[in-house]
């Protein structure tokens, strides 16, 4: 058979290494999955990007760390030790023969499907920061956990504004949280449990702020303030020094004269714990919105399998609820089921959490829309405000004149369909930055739903793309044979395409394609 030499046909990707089972994420679910797969005799590679280098943490990758790390994060060896010591199951995995690799990130999952047929089987892209490579696997278990929903208010870019997952990661796993007195935003089970845990680890909790009139979960003895609006975070060169809140009026806006300044060095976002589905979405797994499971989650069968059968999912990235957040054995059971390919016994699946849709919309309404501040960037990488997103303004660097004739807004884009964050992203650049949308994507979705008057679940998830972690060109580069590049000297390697129009013969045949001037020109 003839192959187009410029195409991929006839070439094969040989991954540098192979394993039967690749587990991504060394949290409770991933460790349980790796141990179960090893117990069954499979060869298992378990990777986890943590501990990530200090300079990457500074960029809020993979969590919203808000710059609140102590100097301890610069000692990679000590971080590695702390990470291993923080969960005895890691040592158990080593002992069970699992090939555990910490500080190794998975940045892409690849598998043949509609429109992709050249891959030699399921593959994952891995990187240790200095190099990247491909690993071939029979099965992939994704247990990448959760991250925090961002929330823009004046001053949220200051050092000291971080997510609850990030705060717990720093405090509980590394002993590296640089916070003395924190204000927590949100009254979800995850926020309140987190606040109690941080308090036990020595962080003072100055207040827990809820914008609704009642908390979502039982605050116990935590200093809760309901019916409040966040006005701004104040600070200096070191970071946050205070959070200013106000009473929320009937109209949802701050009541004048009710500003209250709470001294703190840290503001912790506990509005929403978000399943980390980036690898799954980028791989093409089917994703659906579930208000009971924390937002967009992979569609799974009873044995934790995604719509791509070789990819199973366990733990928080499969869905987050209060029960799973509180009882680690639920995530561990998911991990074991994912490894064993076993269906859940009745009632063993995680129960639903609260309805996140209305809750998150309310926070965004009370905070972003109420602030309407020209300097508060929802997308911090690309410096885009809420108003710029809703009015679909071209980015400021274009210097496009604000002419009345061509003012366009969301409604002009929608037509009959729901608002699409990817379409908004293309026009405003919101979500196009180096943080890959981790800080803004949930906020943008809320803004679009509020503006369009539709439910949060109707707004499609902004697309995730590989590499799901930023990868330097020199690190991403694969070995490349010179011959392959040569065939692509011209677009698609098609000589006949580049024939100037005055030399094109009257008739084209496949037989004559390498000698286009043989034609019977008229």
């Amino acid at each position: 058979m003839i192959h187009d030499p410029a195409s991929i046909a006839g070439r094969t990707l040989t991954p540098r290494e192979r394993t039967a089972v690749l587990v991504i994420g060394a949290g409770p679910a991933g460790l349980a999955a790796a141990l179960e797969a090893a117990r069954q005799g499979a060869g298992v590679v378990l990777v986890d990007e943590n501990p990530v280098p200090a300079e990457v943490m500074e960029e809020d990758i993979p969590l919203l760390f808000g710059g609140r790390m102590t100097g301890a994060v610069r000692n990679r060896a000590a971080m590695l030790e702390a990470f291993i010591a923080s969960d005895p199951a890691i040592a158990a995995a080593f002992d069970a023969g699992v090939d555990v690799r910490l500080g190794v990130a998975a940045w892409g999952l690849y598998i043949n499907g509609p429109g992709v047929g050249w891959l030699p089987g399921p593959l994952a892209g891995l990187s240790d920061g200095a190099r990247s490579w491909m690993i071939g696997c029979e099965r992939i278990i994704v247990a990448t956990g959760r991250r925090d929903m961002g929330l823009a208010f004046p001053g949220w870019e200051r050092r000291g504004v971080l997510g609850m997952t990030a705060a717990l990661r720093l405090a509980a796993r590394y002993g590296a949280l640089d916070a003395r007195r924190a204000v927590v935003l949100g009254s979800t089970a995850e926020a309140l449990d987190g606040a109690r845990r941080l308090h036990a680890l020595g962080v003072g909790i100055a207040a827990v702020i809820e914008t609704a009139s009642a908390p979502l979960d039982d605050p116990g003895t935590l200093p809760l303030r309901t019916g409040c609006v966040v006005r701004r975070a104040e600070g200096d060169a070191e970071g946050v020094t205070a959070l200013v809140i106000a009473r929320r009026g009937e109209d949802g806006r701050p009541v004048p004269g009710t500003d209250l300044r709470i001294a703190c060095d840290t503001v912790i976002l506990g509005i929403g714990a978000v399943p980390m589905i980036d690898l799954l979405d980028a791989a093409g797994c089917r994703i659906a919105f579930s208000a009971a499971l924390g937002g967009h989650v992979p569609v799974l069968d009873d044995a934790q399998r995604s719509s791509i059968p070789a990819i199973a999912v366990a733990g928080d990235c499969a869905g987050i609820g209060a029960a799973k957040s509180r009882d680690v054995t639920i995530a561990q059971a998911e991990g074991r089921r994912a490894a064993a390919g076993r269906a859940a016994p009745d009632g063993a699946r995680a129960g639903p959490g609260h309805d996140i849709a209305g809750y998150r919309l309310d926070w965004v309404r009370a905070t972003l829309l109420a602030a309407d501040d020209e300097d508060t960037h929802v997308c911090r990488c690309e410096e885009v405000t809420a108003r710029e997103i809703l009015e679909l303004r071209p980015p400021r660097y274009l210097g496009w004149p604000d002419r009345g004739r061509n003012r366009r807004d969301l409604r002009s884009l929608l037509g009959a369909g729901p608002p699409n964050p990817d379409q908004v992203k293309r026009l405003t650049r919101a979500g196009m930055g180096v943080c890959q949308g981790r800080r803004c994507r949930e906020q943008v979705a809320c803004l679009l739903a509020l503006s369009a008057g539709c439910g949060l679940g109707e707004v499609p998830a902004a697309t995730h793309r590989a590499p799901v972690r930023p990868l330097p060109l020199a690190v991403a580069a694969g070995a490349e044979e010179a011959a392959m590049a040569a065939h692509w000297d011209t677009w698609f390697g098609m000589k006949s395409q580049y024939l100037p129009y005055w030399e094109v013969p009257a008739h084209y045949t496949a037989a004559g394609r390498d000698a286009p001037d043989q034609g019977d020109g008229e």
Partner: protein
Amino acid sequence: MSGTGASVIIIGAGATGLSAGWWLARDGVDVLAIDRGIVGWEASGRNGGGCTHPFSPLFAEEQRLWPMMDELLGYPTEFRPQRIRVAFDAGQFARSAQAARDAARQGFASEVLDIAELRRLAPLVGDGVHGAHLHRFGGHANPHRTVQAYAWAMQDHGGQVMQHTAVTGFTGSGGRVSGVHTDRGTFGCDHLVLAAGPQTRRLAALLGIDLPMAAARAEMIVTEPLPLMPLGGVDGNGLYGRQTLRGNLAYGGGPHEWIDPNGIGATPPPSTPLMRQIAGRLARLLPRAAHARVIRSWAGIVENTPDGRPVIDRFGNVTIATMSSIGFGLSPASGHAIRDLVQEGACGFADLSSLRLSRFERLEPDWISRQGWQPPSGAGTSGQAGSAGRMLS
């Protein structure tokens, strides 16, 4: 029939269809563009943004229009003129010189850059360069912004766009179409334009028109922003792309994969580890950007005719436009040409005889296998790779 419709219905709200819609709407024509997804969602929004096609009969018009497009449309396209072609060997340099000669014949200048001037215009270029041309024509634009600009400008002139509407069939045939059936009702028309990218073959077949084409997946990557080079339109080394006005490097290249477009919806398939090959080639083209981090990769499906050249042709009251994977840059001119075909029956500003469908009259029925354009058959759904394959990495 539901009684609604338009004088001209365009199927496919990509760069080509929307440009045609805009040109027609400017003339006061009642025009409706229909798309199964979102405007510019497929290949039109997934390309490198190049506007430099000296081999095309639409080249002169492409060059005339691009510098005016922001003003004509009323929305930003991010067009920037000129192009640098970097060659790493004599063969690459010769191909770049051929483009220069083709353009020169049409009145457009190029020059060979010395290394100092190349470095001044494109400081991210490094060592090992065989030679480079500065084409004082062509350029690049932002595909996302441009396709939306076409749609909005078309609407500003009274045209309509219907998204999320799938075409299921037609009323009429034999070069006389009177209605378009969709999953949202039937729409009457006096003239039909097919500009549906890889779907154009299937739609044309419903009208009894055999339009030979094959579909392929091509991939692109984008890096984080870097300081702006004086001239962002730098390509070569088997890559096509640009530095965006924000500073990102957005580049794509092969190898491509021939695919079966049937069953692929409006959302294209994911990219593959070819990202690594593109990254490696970009690090060689612009070595001073080797530290820049890749933050996205994506794939697009493009259609190619057997000779890789567009078909823009009219059959009765049906005008067909398949741009054979080079449609974005040519779109200001292709829209103008389609407007001429619809309104006047012939293109008034360029000789489109090389783009006629009749050039394929003698095409072999098995041209796809003769050219090796068939999708990999049952390629690697599981297990080990074939031992004959060459190793990529």
